[in-house]
């Protein structure tokens, strides 16, 4: 009996700390375990007993990369529980700040973390030697996203302007218009980015995923929609727990999500795109087509192209929303707490981020549950790893490790704290 155990103690170029254990017996991959830590579990306990007014500021600190996903999901749940109706212009501003989050998060991953895999560099610093303009373009796009978040959120990291009912302060039309030229330039850079990443050599690999994403009546979903899957799920966000469940696995502190009675599912750019391709503007659909991406993409390595397309769409949306903006009559609607349960769900850069809160009469949080995208994708990552490694069992450990790391980075996992070295342990009988 031949047994190989391939360990990656620290995954590089992901947001946070992760590890991989791969077991191969007699030429078959028997286990692929992604070990990760998820901060939201701690925050759920921390939230109990706190006021709904503190909720946006607390959850913003769950993640420095996608604070809006956590803030807006929580705020939506408050508004759902307390039956608050927000001004349409407030909704538009929320979509706009979220565009900023998509742009900065996707630009960071596409250019600085993921592109080196396809071009054969250990990191973006080495890649910048030969691809200086591409790296500069990535930084400029990230900066454009940050500028949106900074103006609307008050600061780049852990925005402070969002609150239940709206914003503490809304921008003037003139303040927003200052960003219009930068967003138009970003749109041009994003088109160049799509063309650049679509030229990468992609491994030939496909899997038959169950895609799960929000779906909205008109828009490509960011801040609102029903939860829809490629296998027929079509539910209001409050019914999430009827269709999905979480379980503890021994090798990870993160709970793993699955579709009840079926198993792993995929959230994030590929799922959003597959379910909402028809919600993208014609110009983006045509560019996707010319980039070799049809209406549905099942090759996870090509997710980098879809992320670039989403950056382009977010830039387009930012230009549109800024042009259409009219300052609302009041920055926030009044909020009256009551004993109730509320739900929130938005499309974080990495996929749907689902929230459920139970409030007491005075607005104190009695229970909180947050399901972040990375834990929803964990089963899918592991299935990908098994399938990818199965094609490489005859290769050296290093080749398997490299492709497996690349496979994990397809998901842009958002974990806890960065680590930058790899240790590989191979056990051979």
């Amino acid at each position, binding site marked *: 009996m031949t047994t190989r155990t391939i360990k990656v103690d620290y995954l590089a170029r992901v947001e946070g700390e992760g590890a991989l254990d791969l077991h191969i017996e007699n030429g078959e991959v028997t286990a692929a375990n992604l070990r990760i830590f998820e901060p939201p579990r701690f925050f759920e306990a921390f939230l109990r007993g706190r006021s709904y007014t503190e909720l946006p500021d607390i959850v913003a600190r769950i993640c420095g*990369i996608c604070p809006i996903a956590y803030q807006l999901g929580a705020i939506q749940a408050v508004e759902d529980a307390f039956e608050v109706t927000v001004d349409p212009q407030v909704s538009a501003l929320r979509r706009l700040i979220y565009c900023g989050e998509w742009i900065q998060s996707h630009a960071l991953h596409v250019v600085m973390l993921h592109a080196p895999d396809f071009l054969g560099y250990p990191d973006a610093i080495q890649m910048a030697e030969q691809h200086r303009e591409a790296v500069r373009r990535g930084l400029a796009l990230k900066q454009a996203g*940050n500028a949106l978040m900074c103006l609307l959120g008050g600061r780049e*990291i852990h925005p402070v302007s969002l609150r239940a009912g709206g914003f503490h302060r809304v921008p003037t039309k003139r303040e927003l218009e200052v960003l219009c030229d930068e967003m138009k330039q970003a749109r041009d850079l994003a088109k160049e980015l799509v063309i650049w990443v679509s030229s990468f050599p992609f491994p030939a690999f496909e899997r038959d995923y169950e895609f799960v994403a929000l779906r909205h009546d008109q828009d490509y979903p960011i801040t609102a929609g029903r939860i829809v899957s490629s296998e027929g799920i079509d539910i209001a966000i409050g019914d999430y727990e009827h269709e999905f469940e979480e379980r503890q696995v021994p090798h990870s502190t993160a709970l793993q999500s699955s579709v009840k009675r079926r198993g792993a599912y995929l959230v994030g750019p590929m799922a959003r795109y597959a379910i909402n391709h028809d919600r993208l503007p014609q110009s983006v659909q045509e560019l996707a087509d010319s980039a070799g991406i049809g209406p549905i993409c099942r090759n996870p390595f090509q997710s980098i192209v879809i992320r670039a397309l989403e950056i382009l769409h977010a830039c387009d949306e930012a230009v549109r929303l800024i042009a259409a903006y009219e300052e609302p009559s009041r920055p926030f609607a009044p909020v009256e707490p009551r004993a109730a349960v509320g739900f929130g769900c938005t499309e974080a850069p990495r996929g749907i981020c689902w929230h459920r809160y139970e409030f007491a009469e005075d607005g104190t949080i009695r229970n909180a549950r947050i399901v972040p995208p990375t834990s929803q994708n964990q089963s899918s990552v592991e299935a990908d790893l098994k399938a990818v490694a199965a094609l490489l069992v005859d290769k050296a450990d290093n080749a398997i490790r490299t492709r497996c790391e690349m496979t994990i980075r397809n998901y842009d996992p958002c974990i806890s*704290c960065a680590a*930058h070295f790899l240790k590989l342990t191979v056990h051979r009988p």
Partner: protein
Amino acid sequence: MNAPHSLLVLAIGNPDRGDDAAAWEVATTLDGLLPESTALLRSSGDFLSMLDQWQQFDAMICIDAAAPQGNPGKISRFDIAAGPLPTSLDALSSHAFGLGQSIALAKRLGFAPARIVVYAIEGENFAVGEPLSQGVAAAVMPASKAILSEAKRLSEGKLDA
């Protein structure tokens, strides 16, 4: 020198996470005391959004917290001219790009100031909502004095000081 700001003093940290607030505390102490040609900025650690701003400066002093290694409050000085930052300084970054990597990337892209000096204050407790630990709080004043002296030397053009 690039007038009016030839020197950037960059305080890196998170005021909500215990000893990660050390550099911001140093910045508060330095506020109003730095040479005229100096810009003082506080950063949350998202360096990639500000790399291109670095090229406006001839010199940069970065202040950051370092990962615990048994000596809370220990102040270390690193001159990038002598070599890259130890990777332990990147361990606190919540992003995939820490300070050392960001400096290396800035150099590669032509954004790096000619002189970069990093001051690191070793932390002990980085828990959310916690104050500075005793050892780190005690290091704020000596670190501020050392950085003020360094800023004056760099502003006067004594690049080898």
